[in-house]
């Protein structure tokens, strides 16, 4: 029996359980795409059978970082760019937890880029949602790593000379085993993708286009959108790295021309998660580490038994 009774509990789950009963209500601007992420999580979590107290939502800093203020699970609102190392360690310490990390494009692709690359590379069993609005919102509209070339802002007054980062391609090359892009304006697809990402065993990366009506109002509403799986114009195999890479590249290119492509881009169900790999080499205990501290029968090794090598 688990020392963590909320984990694995079988019961009916109401999506309202994920809405805090009292304040705070979201402080996002009216029309903000972030509501779309919140809504899709509230729909997806009960659908995949997760209760609020077996989920840990870890966020970074930015408008997106407020997600776990409004999603009633266990939450850790960390610091700018550092949600991933906190989240993946929580999963290693208690492999039974459902761990979801979230942050913005500056948080995940800029300041936290190194963590993004390595968490994807290692294929940690978790979900990572990047609220991609192609701008810094909370600090009032500066150019971000995904802002299009030529983007003018107070910190790039002549227009950015930088080509935007390619989040999907980066994720694929780094090693993520589930990669999708969805948009707040496409709630049905968003819910399905989030549910798939949570159920995926490995690092599931969702680049979530979240329009910013306040700081990016001229540019982006992400409509109309095209689902690459449903459109007859696109045909590629999501399990084939090469085809996925080409589709991602095109998707990233055309976004700046106004064509919004979304959908699943890469799904590798065969690759073992990091947790499985680590267990296979004998470096991850079978019983979740966090459980052991509550196990009255646990025998704790002591240094006294290691001294032979020193005598």
């Amino acid at each position, binding site marked *: 029996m688990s020392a963590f009774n909320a984990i694995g509990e079988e019961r009916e789950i109401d999506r309202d359980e994920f809405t805090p009963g009292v304040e705070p209500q979201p402080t996002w601007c009216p029309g903000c795409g972030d509501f779309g992420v919140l809504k899709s999580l509230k729909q997806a979590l009960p659908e995949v059978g997760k209760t609020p107290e077996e989920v840990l939502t870890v966020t970074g800093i930015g408008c997106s970082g407020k997600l776990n203020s409004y999603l009633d699970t*266990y939450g850790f609102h960390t*610091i700018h760019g550092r949600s991933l*190392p906190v989240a993946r*360690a929580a999963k290693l310490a208690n492999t039974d937890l459902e761990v979801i990390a979230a942050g913005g494009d500056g948080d995940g692709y800029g300041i936290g880029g190194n963590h993004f690359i390595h968490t994807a590379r290692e294929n940690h069993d978790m979900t990572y949602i990047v609220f991609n609005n192609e701008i810094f919102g909370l600090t009032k509209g500066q150019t971000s790593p995904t802002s299009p070339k030529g983007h003018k802002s107070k910190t790039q007054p002549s227009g950015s000379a930088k080509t935007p980062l390619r989040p999907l391609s980066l994720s694929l090359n780094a090693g993520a085993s589930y990669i999708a892009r969805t948009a707040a304006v496409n709630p049905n697809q968003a819910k399905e993708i989030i549910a798939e990402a949570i159920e995926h065993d490995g690092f599931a990366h969702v680049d979530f286009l979240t329009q910013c009506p306040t700081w990016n109002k001229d540019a982006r509403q992400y409509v109309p959108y095209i689902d690459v799986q449903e459109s007859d114009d696109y045909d590629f195999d999501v399990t084939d790295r090469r085809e996925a890479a080409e589709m991602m590249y095109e998707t990233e290119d055309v976004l700046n021309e106004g064509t919004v492509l979304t959908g699943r881009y890469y799904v590798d169900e065969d690759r073992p998660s990091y947790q499985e790999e680590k267990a296979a080499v004998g470096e991850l*205990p079978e019983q979740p580490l966090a459980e052991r501290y509550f196990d009255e029968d646990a025998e704790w090794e002591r240094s006294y038994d290691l001294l032979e090598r020193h005598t």
Partner: protein
Amino acid sequence: MSDELIWRIAGGSGDGIDSTSQNFAKALMRSGLDVFTHRHYPSRIRGGHTYVEIRAADREVQSRGDGYNFLLSLGDSFARNPQEEAYYGNEEIKPLSENLDDLREGGIIVYDEGLVSEEDVEAIDLEARAEENDWHVFPMDLRGLAREHGREVMRNTAGVGVTAALLDMDLEHIEDLMSDAMGGDVLEANLEILHEAYETTREEYEFEHELRAPEGSHETEQALLSGSNAIAYGAIDAGCRFIAGYPMTPWTDVFTILAQNFPDMGGVSEQVEDEIAAAALALGASHAGAKAMSGSSGGGFALMSEPLGLAEMTETPLVLVESMRAGPSTGMPTKPEQGDLEFVLYTSQGDSSRVVFAPSSIEEAYEQTRLAFEIAWDYQLPAIVIYDQKLSGENKNVDVEFFDREPEPDLGATLTEDELAEAAHDASGKFKRFNYEDAENNVAPRSLPGQKGGRYLATGNEHSPVGHISEDPDNRVAQMTRRIEKLDSIRAELDEEHDSNQTYFGDETADYGIITWGSSHGAVNEAVERLNENGHSVKGVSVSDMMPFPEAEMTEFLESVDEAMVVEMNATAQFRGLIQKELGRYGEKMTSLLKYNGNPFEPAEIVEGYEVNVADEDRQPTAQVRIEPAAGD
């Protein structure tokens, strides 16, 4: 028989100096002596002048000595540029030439004439210097001997054989240790070389030197451990089973020891992309319920400032270790210094609430690491163990029974689900994780993700009792005050319920005090002993509690003396500054003796510092140290 042996084995990095010295130190320990080792090495992969010193005596030794009395100079097989004018100079002769200044009168020199040319030896005037200092010189073809019976790399064994012969040591313990470490042909060849070297030395030379291995005995079994071993073992016995890190000298030792032991102990070790991630992982694992740690040396610790501050704000228990080396920046990677004190005390934005211990010996490294875990989990804050390259790498014998105690995996102020059901919640059912009302010792117990009835938000923003982001002034003051006042509660606990972490020595009635901290303790202790034997009256204290500062103890100590000298390995008297800041006075009583040349203090340097300060104010010390006068002087 001699009072003490200080054996120095010198050669190039990569020549196996470290493992040879480790086994020889163990052999001396097994023969009944107390031993203490000091490792000096360059930040270089292969070659460069490196040595290990083993001090052995029939009494407790806790410091390097003044100089040394036996040199085993092996060749440097990776020596470069054998020309005088080259940047590194003639490296082939360095294992001999670089070590002569510290060799005591009457000392012994064994060098490998198979690797060093006669001209080179002549060029450094060895003969004249030997005569002047009454050194006994034994050139031996160690390389040739090794080649004849085995392989060239076994010349270290030949050197040990010669050493044992000259010191009239029994070979038994050395043979046992070799048999433990190797087998088959390799063992056979090594044993042959050992005996051949031993016999040849006895046959070829008449011994005119007086130095012999001291004799001693231990009443209980001893273990030879480093400060890094002790820190790692303290963590294991505190129930730590999660470590995340990134390699950096000298911190890597602790990381390696735990990474190697954890798989057999159900623990988790993670080598990650950088030190921000390392500390963030430890934080995340702790948040989820594991006893977790991370660590680094100065440069890597700088990256940990962010997660460190987050641990303070979210009141997440965490242990970090910081293994200091000479700075600033990359500094001198393999040299000790105590220059990161202020950095570790204050890094990260805002007012800090952390505990910092600076152990001063192998035993304290174990005790205070355990204590750091206990305090961190009881009070939900980061506890840092700060030490340095010296303590990290030095080995000392410790009574095996010292480690015979119960492990303590307790999670401190963490609630069970039954307790959570009884705890305070808000109207929506969120657990009041940061409840400042009724917080005993300023601690609000926590829940863990996955527990029923425990959900809350941890956040680096200021927050309400359930963790909601809050800028309400009343809440802010209540939370901030509670967080920083945890340190007062900890100070009270340390004063009332624990033995003092400070170590006192010397003449209790003295009106002159020497104050030190961390790894300089051993040398200061020996200097104080020597001063008192020489008719002075001096008392000493070695301080380990950096934060919360032992205000009462230090006030009492400073009140009891007219003058004090603060000894530390940095250039700006950081610990003296801390005393003045914490106590708000005594600046005019305290002079500093500072050393920052990359080598730890020798006792004689401290004795000299005292003499210059007290008796002979016009004179400057001859050692490479600096005296920083008291305030107003």
